[in-house]
């Protein structure tokens, strides 16, 4: 790395080491707040030195050493201020000083930190910002921009959550086996939420938000690597990689949304797909029950493996959506299943499923139900009914790009 590393390159490099240093220090200090402060101070030093002197050979060791020294300085100041805590502060000082700083010897306790940040005892709205801050190393202004929230709001949520971690005795630990499935589900939901925040905005010009998708992939990779026996983190990682591989093809040059069937597949990111497909094969095993992320990844993989939309293996998608509907029986999954059935067995079979779903009422306000229904009616040659369904969809859609798409389809159905 040349010595003139610009500030955002330093930020990116530092971010990769942030969570590991916070985790190690928080465990030793028994306090995430102090740990974060020490690592943040180390960041200020890095911003000053790395561009001038070059990036150190082992950034991980440099970050932990510098943060350790800042933590010890802080403890010494407190020791002189508060006689009563002097003994405790000295013990902590020694414990911090004893932490190893050779790259290979630094323990990786980021998983423990992630479980603490996504603890269900913390407010749901605080889990995403706290994870991005402590594990991801994003600053409060970066998080605020990425989540489209005021900085003061983000700051307040993080401060409150850190206080609760400390006062309520949330330990940095992987939960006991009997609680692992539930707690892992929260962690993965938080990571997928981070990803979707970035993904949903990739149509816009705001690069910070697209960064967020990459950040979610990075953190999910940490969880998947550190919990190698759990299939769901691997499934989520593959799902994110596959969705991210389509980001260039999702919007046309005018910013219009492009449907999966109409995307230019040569613009899909082949490297991401090449990484994701073996992951899917690793966790999608016959006769082993698959969780929702593994199944969604397997579904995305079917699309990734098709050379064009007409080559899609709809029979396999029908089976996968059936399995997904079994483990996460939501109306939206049922709707997607109905579309797969229509593609595999013909529009009439799909329409019957959609009509049954519509009769349930749960998705009556969901524009995609009406547009899917309209599409099947169109393919059955029922133009008047199709136009009627497109009008319902239009009345419910709020996204401009989607509205324009539906208007074009409505005009076709009306023969205009």
């Amino acid at each position: 790395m040349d010595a003139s590393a610009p500030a955002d390159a330093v930020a990116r490099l530092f971010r990769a080491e942030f969570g590991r240093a916070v985790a190690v220090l928080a465990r030793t200090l028994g306090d995430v707040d102090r740990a974060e402060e020490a690592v943040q101070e180390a960041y200020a030093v890095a911003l000053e030195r790395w561009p001038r002197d070059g990036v150190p050979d082992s950034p991980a060791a440099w970050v932990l050493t510098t943060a350790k020294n800042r933590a010890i300085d802080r403890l010494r100041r407190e020791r002189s201020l508060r006689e009563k805590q002097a003994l405790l502060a000295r013990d902590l000082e020694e414990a911090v000083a004893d932490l190893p700083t050779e790259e290979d010897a630094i323990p990786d306790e980021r998983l423990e930190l992630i479980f603490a940040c996504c603890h269900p005892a913390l407010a749901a709205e605080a889990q995403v910002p706290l994870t991005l801050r402590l594990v991801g190393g994003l600053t409060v202004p970066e998080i605020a921009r990425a989540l489209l929230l005021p900085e003061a709001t983000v700051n307040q949520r993080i401060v409150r959550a850190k206080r609760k971690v400390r006062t309520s005795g949330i330990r940095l630990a992987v939960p006991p086996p009997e609680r692992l499935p539930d707690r892992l589900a929260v962690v993965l939901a938080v990571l997928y939420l981070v990803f979707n925040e970035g993904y949903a905005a990739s149509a816009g010009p705001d690069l910070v938000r697209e960064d967020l998708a990459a950040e979610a992939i990075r953190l999910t990779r940490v969880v998947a690597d550190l919990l190698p026996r759990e299939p769901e983190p691997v499934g989520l990682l593959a799902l994110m990689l596959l969705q991210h591989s389509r980001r260039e093809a999702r919007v046309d040059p005018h910013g219009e949304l492009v449907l999966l069937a109409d995307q230019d597949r040569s613009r899909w990111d082949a490297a991401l797909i090449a990484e994701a497909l073996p992951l899917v094969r690793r966790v999608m095993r016959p006769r082993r029950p698959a969780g929702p992320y593994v199944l969604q990844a397997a579904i995305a993989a079917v699309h990734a493996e098709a050379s064009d939309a007409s080559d899609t293996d709809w029979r396999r998608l029908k089976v996968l959506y059936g399995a997904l509907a079994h483990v996460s029986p939501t109306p939206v999954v049922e709707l997607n299943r109905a579309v797969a059935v229509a593609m595999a067995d013909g529009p009439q079979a799909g329409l019957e499923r959609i009509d049954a779903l519509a009769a349930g009422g749960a998705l009556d306000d969901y524009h995609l139900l009406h547009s899917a229904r309209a599409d099947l009616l169109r393919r059955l040659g029922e133009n008047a009914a199709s136009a009627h369904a497109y009008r319902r969809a239009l009345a419910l859609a709020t996204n401009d790009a989607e509205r324009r798409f539906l208007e074009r389809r409505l005009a076709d159905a009306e023969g205009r």
Partner: protein
Amino acid sequence: MQYILLLYDEEAESMKQSEAETEAEMQEYFALDEALTEEGLNKGGEALQPASQATSVRVRNGEVMVTDGPFAETKEQLGGYYLIDAADLETAIGVAQRIPAARKGTVEIRPVLKFD
């Protein structure tokens, strides 16, 4: 760390229990008491008389106001508590989920504030 576990459930529902159900629940609480003591977590705990037996006291401008009833009228009432000594919140949650009241009502975990 010390935690107090506050046991809330609907008194009206408990009143509807049969004698046998109440007895079975009592036995469950006795067994839990013993288990928590053996595990070194138990620092005490009591069942409370119903909220209808509560008396609330407020002092405003030196004037003492005594009223009938609990601090707040809620659907679920405070019916008892445990004080436990646990390593962390995870352990406290583990205890809370074993309390019969958690199945019918809610167990609220509050860390005890220590001044030291």
